[in-house]
């Protein structure tokens, strides 16, 4: 049986998933190494791409090198399936692969994202692909690449800690909102891509394979399933996440999700809505229990069956 018989019909004359098979193999080799050494940045030879680097090309190449005809794809940007970047990446992948896409994170076998992990915890067998703008967490404290590599090799992270110390001195707390440095598998420090603090504790011991790709720097790294991801924190200043207490989503009423602030120019007021729009839609359509239902113990049939 030939590959062409297996792949769904697609609208583009390019190879399946755009990249040639040699380029995919190169990226997969780098990914295997990355999975074997959690948190370690592995360089790869990157082919020419149809979109500009810095627009999610790191994640895109990982997705392109992994995707198969049977995959179900979800792509989000800022938690949303409908934002421009997500739509463009999805169109490109659909045109070159013909695979089925979904907004429901539970259905997806491959999920590419930049700023969020879905609210519903991912499961074994699912792969999260994160787009990373700055893969090197030490870059802020050390401009030299040779030196940052030595620092990783030696576990020499005192300067990373010093930057956190300075942050606390100046701001009273660690003020990093995203890209919060984490120690993976008690070894390397990694930049978890621009996901908010909210999602960092959800990376810890997570069930899915998480792959992180940086297109400009041409690096990949990985958090395999059931691997510890610990944010750096001082003993007397525990890591905290965004506080949404007293707020709820205007669309679905959720109080336990990561909420975006949305400003209404017409009225000059702002309101909160789930950043994960796919999840929000599931709650609204009753496919996932709403907060009220969860409190009362009533659960929709489908969610209860899982």
């Amino acid at each position, binding site marked *: 049986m030939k590959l062409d018989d297996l792949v769904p019909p697609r609208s583009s004359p390019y190879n399946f998933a755009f990249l040639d098979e040699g380029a995919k193999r190169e990226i997969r080799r780098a990914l295997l190494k990355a999975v074997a050494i959690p948190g370690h940045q592995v360089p790869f030879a990157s082919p020419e791409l149809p979109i500009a680097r810095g627009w999610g090309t790191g994640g895109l190449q990982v997705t392109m090198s992994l995707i198969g005809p049977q995959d179900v794809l979800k792509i989000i940007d800022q938690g949303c399936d409908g934002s421009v970047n997500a739509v463009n990446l999805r169109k490109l992948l659909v045109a070159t692969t013909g695979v089925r896409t979904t907004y429901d994170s539970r259905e997806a076998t491959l999920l590419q994202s930049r700023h969020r992990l879905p609210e519903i915890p991912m499961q074994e067998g699912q792969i999260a692909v994160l787009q990373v703008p700055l893969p090197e967490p030490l870059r802020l404290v050390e401009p030299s690449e040779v030196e940052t590599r030595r620092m990783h*090799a*030696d*576990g*020499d992270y*005192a*300067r990373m*800690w*010093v930057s956190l*110390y*300075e942050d*606390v*001195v100046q701001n009273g707390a660690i003020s990093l909102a995203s890209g919060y440095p984490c120690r993976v598998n008690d070894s390397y420090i990694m930049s978890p891509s621009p996901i908010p603090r909210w999602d960092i504790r959800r990376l810890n011991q997570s069930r899915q394979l998480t792959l992180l790709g940086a297109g400009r720097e041409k690096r990949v790294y990985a958090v395999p399933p059931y691997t510890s991801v610990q944010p750096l924190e*001082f*003993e*007397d*200043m525990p890591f905290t996440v965004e506080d949404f207490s007293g707020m709820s989503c205007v669309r679905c009423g959720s109080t336990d999700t990561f909420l975006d602030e949305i400003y209404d120019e017409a009225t000059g007021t702002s309101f909160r809505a789930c950043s994960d729009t796919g999840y929000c839609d599931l709650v609204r359509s009753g496919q996932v229990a709403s907060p009220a239902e969860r409190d009362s113990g009533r659960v929709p049939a489908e969610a209860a069956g899982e």
Partner: protein
Amino acid sequence: MSSDVLLQARGIGKRYGAGCEACAELTGPQAGVNRCPRCGTVHALCDVSFDLHEGEILGIVGESGSGKSTLVQCLYFDVDASEGELRLRGEADGENLFDLPRSRKRRVRGRLMGMVYQNPLRGLRMDITSGANVAEKLLEADVFNFRRIRDRAAELLASTEIPAGYLDAFPRSLSGGMQQRIQIAKALANNPPLVLLDEVTSGLDVSVQARVLDLIRELQRERGMSMIVVSHDMGVIRLLADRTLVLKNGRVVERGLTDQILEDPQHPYSQLLVHSTL
């Protein structure tokens, strides 16, 4: 290793180049050069051995290019020694520290050694606050409690006579003497048993020199750590060191009690050194 020996150095050498058979004869104090005229190898340091005892201050004196700084930099692992052995009591089961992997050397250095460089630009980072410079040393030794780091930094800066308001000041905005004090505070952060001082007062004016030297003496007396003091200035050595090694062209040409060397130098070079200062 006898019980009160903290640091044992044996046959330490640092060579730039491959070396040849003629090197031993053509370099060193008797030849007056440390660059071999036949093969061009530079012997910055050759066969230096000594013991440093508990609570002792060892002086290392010599002219520019004699290998003083190379020696302390080898001891602090800033420079990789070409040969020799270094043992620190109770550390690495008496293994040669030079054989340890880099990450372990860094840990030994972080917890057990402090270093004060001649030029504060080397020992301090100017783009972070004084407190953060001290904190770096504590964080290297895995102290991850913010309050403790902060209190310890403040305490150290106070003990090196830096006004409390400078904790969050940037070292680049401070005077040379103040920067040296911050370096000293940083070096002492983990109460290391061994502190290395490389020409600490050379860049300072005379009145500040005296105060910094007083401070070092006082801190040493209080805390009882061992020190290696490198200087080309016999005055500094006289004031601080119990015992002294005289280096010339990378070799030890004389060793003994500091007073003895100052009063009755044996080697012609030591005599020259003593007489040119007095």
